[in-house]
């Protein structure tokens, strides 16, 4: 509901700006409308662990995109919508992924509205990435995000790098699977039951800043976020009751990548402080690509990453002391065929998650994707992962672009 309100507000605001600008702007205005329809089928082949969960989930999603730019592209309005219909009522949802006005001039850029930004260098986990809330019902890898209301100001300097300032006036709550959904806990978490530490609740005015620069082969970024945490904090009392809420956090993040020959050396690290919890987490890894192996464009990349989280089993993503290994295969053919296979394994227990993601284009407007996640030998002591031990799945999706 709040999403819609904000959307309308932003729409009014941006439309107004748009009109104001068009009077004196250079004549050329570019419109661009796109539409994607995605049919998806998820199949969970193990019997469900919890009541109400299904095995087969057919689903359909719509992604309209509209952009309008003028002033040689230095001013624009961008919109991306999203609607999904699914058997799980909570996965049936819609969102305004983006709706913002942007203006760029010389060495600065300003964006106002709902927007998505990404921070990070690591592939298997995104520790530093904190601006947008995760749309957790969408994908298992957490890469789908909810649109975040913001004012973003970027200042680009030659000598000192790029400075990004964010004013984030509203917090979006994380989505969770409903009683009919898979990949949930034994107790269904109702998004609306989760409260806030802050008295201002979702209207707490949050701030973030990030500095990014590069020196030769080194790309570096430092960031700080102060506001409502994006991850809910689960506190268990001695009687086993769960108290979950969004704490007020201070989080400092580091991103580092060294690009040397075909090696990408990566490091991401955060320190998060809240009254109820302080912790440190780190991810470090390497990616190496053997390119054009067959003289026909076949690239095979190998990835290795180590993930550490001081929260131990309370880490919501269950990646507390794990190793990720994987391979990215890109055929570089006209259909852009690519495959990513990998696994994350716990260094202390037997718990392992295998994954496969493959995609290919058919014709010029169709794409197909296959995804598989296999939860293997999940240790019963895994507080989070043990809930998903019967949730191995195969997902097939086909998209048509208009």
């Amino acid at each position, binding site marked *: 509901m709040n999403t819609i309100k904000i959307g309308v507000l932003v729409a009014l605001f941006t439309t107004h700006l748009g009109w104001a600008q068009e009077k004196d702007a250079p004549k050329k205005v570019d419109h661009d409308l*796109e539409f*994607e329809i995605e049919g998806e089928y998820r199949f969970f082949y193990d019997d469900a662990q919890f009541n109400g969960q299904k095995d087969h989930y057919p689903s359909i999603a719509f992604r309209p995109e509209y*952009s309008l730019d003028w002033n*040689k*592209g230095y001013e*624009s309005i*961008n919109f991306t919508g999203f609607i999904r219909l699914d058997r799980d009522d909570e996965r049936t949802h819609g969102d305004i992924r983006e709706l913002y006005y*942007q203006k*760029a001039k*010389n*060495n600065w*850029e300003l964006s106002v509205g709902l927007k*998505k*930004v*990404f921070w*990070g*260098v690591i592939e298997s986990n995104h520790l530093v990435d904190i601006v947008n809330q995760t749309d957790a019902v969408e994908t298992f890898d957490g*890469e789908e995000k909810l649109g975040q209301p913001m004012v973003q100001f*970027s200042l*680009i300097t*030659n000598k000192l790098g*790029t400075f990004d300032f964010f004013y984030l006036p509203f917090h979006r709550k994380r989505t969770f699977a409903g009683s009919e959904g898979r990949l949930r806990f034994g107790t269904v978490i109702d998004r609306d039951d989760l409260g806030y530490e802050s008295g201002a609740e979702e209207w707490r005015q949050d701030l973030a800043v990030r500095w*990014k620069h*590069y020196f030769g082969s080194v*790309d570096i970024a430092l960031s700080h976020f102060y506001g409502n945490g994006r991850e809910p904090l689960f506190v268990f009392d001695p009687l086993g009751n769960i108290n979950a809420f969004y704490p007020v956090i201070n989080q400092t993040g580091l991103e580092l*990548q060294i*690009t040397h*020959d*075909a*090696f*990408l050396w990566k490091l991401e690290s955060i320190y998060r402080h809240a009254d109820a919890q302080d912790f440190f987490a780190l991810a470090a890894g390497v990616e190496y*690509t053997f*390119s*054009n192996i067959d*003289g*026909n*464009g076949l*690239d095979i990349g190998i990835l290795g990453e180590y993930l550490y989280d001081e929260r131990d089993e309370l880490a919501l993503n269950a990646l507390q002391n794990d190793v990720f290994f994987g391979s990215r295969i890109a055929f*570089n*053919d*006209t*259909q*852009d065929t690519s495959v990513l296979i990998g696994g994350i394994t716990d260094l202390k227990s037997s718990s392992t998650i295998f994954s496969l993601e493959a995609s290919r*284009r058919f014709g*010029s*407007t169709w*794409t197909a994707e296959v995804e598989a996640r296999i939860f293997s030998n999940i240790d019963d002591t895994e507080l989070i992962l043990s809930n998903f031990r019967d949730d191995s799945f195969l997902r097939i999706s086909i*998209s048509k*672009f*208009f």
Partner: protein
Amino acid sequence: MRKSIFISIALLGTIMGKAQTPEERGLQIAKAAEEADLGFGSSIVELKMTLKNKNGQTSERFLVTRTLELTEDGDKSLIVFGSPKDVKGTATLTFTHKVGSDDQWLYLPSIKRVKRISSNNKSGPFVGSEFAYEDLSSQEVEKYTYKFLETKGSLLLVEQDPVDPKSGYTRRIVSYNKDKGYRIEKVEFYDRKNALLKTLTYTDYKLYKNKFWRAGTFTMVNHQSNKETLLKFSDYNFEADLSEDDFSQVALQRAGN
């Protein structure tokens, strides 16, 4: 008086001709071509790429390329994909260096991620086409060693050997047109086994600002796979007056949205 000038010019010509090795002549031509193109500042061009397989089936991509001329170091370029629609907005930012490997960033619009990528993969195909990455990167004089081969009418044929061992070629034979500002008419690429791999032909040339030759069509034929890639360019825009600010990572994301 007039006679003596003629004689001295003739003499000078002979001396220069004798003193110049084929290597020096080759380098001189490459530098002349570079010089002829100096001062374009910046350009924006739209292009349609048509990929043809050996059975004649085709697929298309639309791209926009922005280029910023730099003289102390290599040029900067920003390429944005307009189609196929599933990769629309995917963009690359490249800082070419005269010496050493280029700096390159990739923007993935679906997850809004900017990723620094290795520029190591020179010989691989660009988006499934017959163009390798190295064929499309800024052609800096320092990236090759040269040997002048022969003159064919107004064409000067120069062999160019890539300095970088990661190049997919042993040599390229480049035909410069000395009467048309040293524009390139044709390039023949020889693979690592020194067999003829590809031929690139430049046609539909147009002269911009009375100085800069730009081909409207690039035709790349792979003689070993019988595949073909055609690039058709729109008119070049040299008036956009782009600056370094249009080639930042922030600009990369903006271009892809």
